[in-house]
């Protein structure tokens, strides 16, 4: 690193606390990839158009929301919790409903946009558990895919929405 001017950042990523000294100009995505080995999150453009780098980020008192990690400095993420595609599955490796639906419905081909697409979809479904096709298309318009024409991505997100609603109902019944 070329700078002696470094800042201490503490970020919980996928359940592990990482403490590092970084150059202030370091982007969160580069911090994740180059310092923390979180190479599941990728960089697809320089202009925050493609969304391939999308992760979930939230403060200690705020829920995690999707952010393009190329548009966040690592120092801005200090004190937050971050979930990447690598931390989305359950403790025993059980896939998140969105991951499962992407597999079931062939919503990926080369897979490069997939981490960002999945993380954006997870956030979208937290806002809107039952989106229409149009709402999914609008909701994912910040994530570019060159392989699929989006058709199976839209189907997968709506299918995952149905699974998540069913899971939520089961949870509520159990709670009742």
């Amino acid at each position, binding site marked *: 690193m070329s700078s002696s001017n470094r800042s201490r950042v503490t970020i919980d990523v996928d359940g592990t606390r990482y403490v590092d000294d970084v150059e202030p100009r370091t982007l969160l995505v580069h911090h994740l990839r180059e310092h923390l080995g979180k190479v*599941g999150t990728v960089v697809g453009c*320089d202009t925050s158009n*493609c969304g391939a780098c999308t992760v979930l980020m939230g403060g200690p008192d705020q829920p995690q929301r999707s952010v393009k990690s190329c548009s966040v400095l690592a120092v801005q993420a200090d004190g937050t919790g971050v979930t990447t595609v690598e931390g989305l599955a359950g403790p025993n490796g059980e896939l998140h409903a969105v991951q499962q639906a992407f597999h079931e419905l062939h919503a990926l081909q080369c897979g490069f946009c997939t981490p960002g697409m999945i993380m954006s979809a997870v956030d979208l479904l937290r806002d809107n558990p039952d989106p229409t096709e149009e709402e999914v298309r609008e909701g994912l318009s910040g994530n570019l895919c060159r*392989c699929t*024409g989006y058709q199976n991505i839209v189907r997968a997100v709506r299918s995952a929405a149905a699974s998540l609603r069913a899971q939520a109902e089961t949870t509520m019944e159990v709670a009742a």
Partner: protein
Amino acid sequence: MTAGTEPEVGNARKRKEDARLITGRTRWTDNITLPGMLHLAILRSPHAHARIVGVDVSAALREPNVVAAFSGADVADVQGSLPCAWPVTEDIVHPVRPPLAVDAVRHHGEAVAVIVARDRNSAVDALDAIEVTYEPLPAVLDLAAAAEDGADLVHPDKGTNRSYTWIFDSADAGTGGSVADAEAEVTVHRRYVQQRLIPAFMEPRSVVVDPGAGEYTIWSATQIPHILRVFYALLTGVPEHKIRVIAPDVGGGFGGKLQVTPEEMIAFLAARRVGKPVKYTETRGDSMLSAHHGRDQIQDITLTAKRDGTLTGIHVKLLANMGAYLGLVGPGVPILGAFMFNSIYKVRAYRFECVGVFTNTTITDAYRGAGRPEATYAIERAMDELAVELGMDPIELRRHNWIKAEEFPYTTVAGLVYDSGDYDKATDKALELFDYAGLRAEQRRRRDSRDPVQLGIGVSTYTEMCGLAPSRILGALRYAAGGWESASVRVLPTGKVEVVTGTSPHGQGHVTAWSQIVADELGVAFEDVEVLHGDTRTSHKGLDTYGSRSLAVGGVALVEACRKVRDKARVVAAHMLECSPDDLEFTGGAFRVRGTPDATKTVADAAFAVFAAHDLPDGVEATLDADATFDPQTFSFPHGTHLCATLVDTRTGQVTIDRYVAVDDVGKVVNPLIVEGQVHGGVAQGIAQALYEEAVYDTSGTLLTGSFVEYTIPSAADLPTIVTARTETPATSNPLGVKGVGEAGAIAATPAVVNAIVDALRPFGVDDVPMPCTPERVWRAVRSQSGGAA
């Protein structure tokens, strides 16, 4: 498949590839980090055309963490020239293309100098300390003007901007008559411009070169690890057996990673120079400037026909923009199109003339379809114009001219033999799904009521030549390599199967589809097959993935390797069952003695017997494996009919795709899930050419569309849901009956969409809208024809 169950081929298997990709456990080239690895940054030309007066890297060398810095002049004697493997004519003008510019830069973004540093930031920072003195030269940017005598020159020493002239004439070839003699009761002449596109794969290109101790290991985000290895050997002088090329996970290509790139050679030069592993990962901005572009042609097409609609002649004059140099297969791209202008029609006179032209722009080369989308666009647009001229329904005009199912095999005016097809069946299915009659009625209603939102219907019936390619034909077309493909199959002692393929997937799902093929051929479980690819150490032979070739060529090689394995297993099984091999039939995944169905042995049984080798028949080696190489005798010819309905707001120029139906015939389908995905993605890119994308240079030759802000690849909100269906007319040219599917959607969709837009605007006197049909262009087209102020 386990013995006796349903066949795997045809089954919509979910992909094996997904597990890693959906959990982030991926192996992109940029993920690779090696001990001691250094990082490369490249200084690029801000000029479209300039003489390099001098490059001074001395200040950069004093920047922190900088290990090396050099310019083209520093490596001029060792860097060689990037290859063009397809010099289409004997007298082609083929300028030297150094990876790092030495005396001159000839397009915006051409590599000029490099920094090698401890980390990426230090490398990029130090670029500012490199001093380059340029003497700007006139930039040659207009394709038509560049082809004229007296134009400013991209390569002054060559004396011309015309790289080659390639001509096909059916009268000379003996495949038809002369266009001059064709009956011409009606003549339609049109000029279409194929705008320049950028493939825009999502994973930026990346390369890591590890020089080891004289043995080079190279990871690259490429479609062509095998071809790349050959060129590394030829260009660097390192013996081929000391070079290992690995294409790990590769994030899309679409032809855009079918190239031997300046960056791959520069990274090699840097790694050799410093003796350490070096990584280069491009930014998107670098990628837009330096990765090759596609299309960029001016097409003059003339159709002649009889009053009854019979097409009598096609005459095409093409200007093809090569960019500043010749790419790996760039000159051949329009030549692939030369065989497709006649499409599915029984025309008997055809002439095609193509001039490849240099301009001060990024090189062009293969992009999804490579020549065939361009040709299909021109003929399908012109057929609609002919239909208007004749007062015929555009589908009836096509039906009147296309080859009938009973006429196959059919030798076309371009000299290809189409083995199979059923254009009536595919079209009838599309018309039914589309509700063609209902939409025509709706169109009449809107026209009669002068609705500001007009409805247009576009049709595109296409075929393409896939399965690249018969090596003999490639040789006749002056392509440097062959078109065969290779596969190895080895059955392990426990009955599991390892397959090595020479194809190099980057999203196409070969691991899944190849597993399905092997499962059926050897009677093993889908899960018990592993497919290895993309590493020249394990995959020794191959010609990689492009041109919808992998299944139609590589898949067939795989079948042949499996059958060799099965033949050997049959001998072993017969020995175990104490019968003659001729007494065995292979059904339900096992060898069975005819007449004694309970006496069975599986390939796995034979594998263990071979492994133990205690009691093998005489002359049988103790291995159960086989290689096969398949070189097709002919191309394969997928076809289909796409129909598009657009709503065009004549007040704003806004185009909305209201309905899109794609019926494709790709022959036998191995995995319908994958086939449907390929059609979706292809159609999306075809729609993108029609409506959204264009690489634009300003008058100084600066690329204005240098990021995803300006180069507008569509998002989910910009694309419609499409209806897909298939007809299945098996190819007769290969044992699988397969044809290929990778490019079909991109070929068919563009003319379908533009035909629909023009159809909507016919009442306004509009007969063309240039691509991409942005709201502004549509609005101007309406205004220019209806006398309104533009």
